[in-house]
């Protein structure tokens, strides 16, 4: 009856779109992460999946990919890059592409959704405690 939560993760292959923020040349950077959502069986379950990160700029730039506040990849003098990243998360997770000055070129949130709106707890007492 028990099974890994990953079994319950169904990936939604939904295309994401460019979402530039606060960049010196925001309109010139495309940033995408696929998939952008993971469905778990119930709220609070963790999702484990691999996301594909892709970005493209009109001019070569120095940039780093951040998973929330954690730096995961950096590129020097590149105008395009692609990376696969294994993630495990229980709540929505924000990815940002930043320059060396920590300015955000673009960002994308990866969502976690539950197929059931119900939340569950572990029983803390045996049912039929008469026994």
């Amino acid at each position, binding site marked *: 009856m028990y099974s890994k*939560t990953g079994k319950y993760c169904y990936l939604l292959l939904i295309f994401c779109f460019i979402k530039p923020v606060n960049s010196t040349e925001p309109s010139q950077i495309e940033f995408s992460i696929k998939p952008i959502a993971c469905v778990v069986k119930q709220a609070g379950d963790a999702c484990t999946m691999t996301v594909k990160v892709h970005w493209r700029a009109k001019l070569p730039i120095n940039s780093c990919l951040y998973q929330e506040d954690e730096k995961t990849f950096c590129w020097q003098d590149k105008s395009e890059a692609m990376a696969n990243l294994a993630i495990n998360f229980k709540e929505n997770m924000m990815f940002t592409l930043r320059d060396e000055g920590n300015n955000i070129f673009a960002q994308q949130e990866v969502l976690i959704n539950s197929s059931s709106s119900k939340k569950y*707890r572990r029983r*803390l007492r045996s049912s*039929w405690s008469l026994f």
Partner: protein
Amino acid sequence: MKYIFLLLLCLSSSLYAQCNVENEECIAIDEWQFSLALGAGVITNPLHGGKNIPLILIPNFSYYGENFFIENSVLGYSFIEESHIAVSLISQVNRENAFFSRWHPSNIFVTERFNSAIGVSPPPSEDNGEEIEISLDDIEKRAWAIDGGLQINWFVTNKTDVKAQVLHDINSVYNGFNAQIEINHFLHFQQVDQAIVKLTLGGNWQSSEQVNYYYGIDTQDDSSGSALYQTTSSFSPYIKLFGHYQLTQQWAVRVNLSREFLSSSLTNSPLVSEDTLDTFFVGVTYVF
């Protein structure tokens, strides 16, 4: 004991306890759950003159909020709840008075007619006075105690958990403590995934104040003073076996077997006639 603890600690670091909605040990938040069990069973009464408690129709209800929970006669509030551990303040009716009273909450819905067959007072001792026996009909009534205290649940793996609790009577009946520790292990069968078996090993500890209140004999019980009994704290280990077979979403078959090996502090009491406390039940359950 130290090595068992270390083994459990190692297991807990490699396996992750999660709440599986298909399992009975997992419950939806903010939903009342009512169920009834219909079957045949008994809880033995270890007291001289005590009536066994037949189990025919047994109600069960529970409610779990974000932090608050009710599980039959237990109220609780969890102020820490992580994937591996939960710490709760709880309050519950003390079990011991069930053997002294017919109107304990756990005895509701139990039919009286079975008592005439199984509630016979034991015959007088043939040791001609060497072993004094006192029937609960001849002593002062014991009062219900409401206990309150701390409970810790440790979800070692998704198949094994440990529960420990320390309680004190909050309505000052016996002015003492009791504690319980148990380890539960679930067995699942790949070929028969509707079946669950749970094995429990544990122990009940009672402070001397609690033992003496319920099982001691003082001058209020025995004005002659010939059978006074006061003793020390007790520890009674127990083993439980629970089987559950899901028939449909609402109906299931269940079997419960348990035996508690009563401490000598209890069995030496003139009130106590049995060394063990047994529970047996087999029946069907319906979840509303």
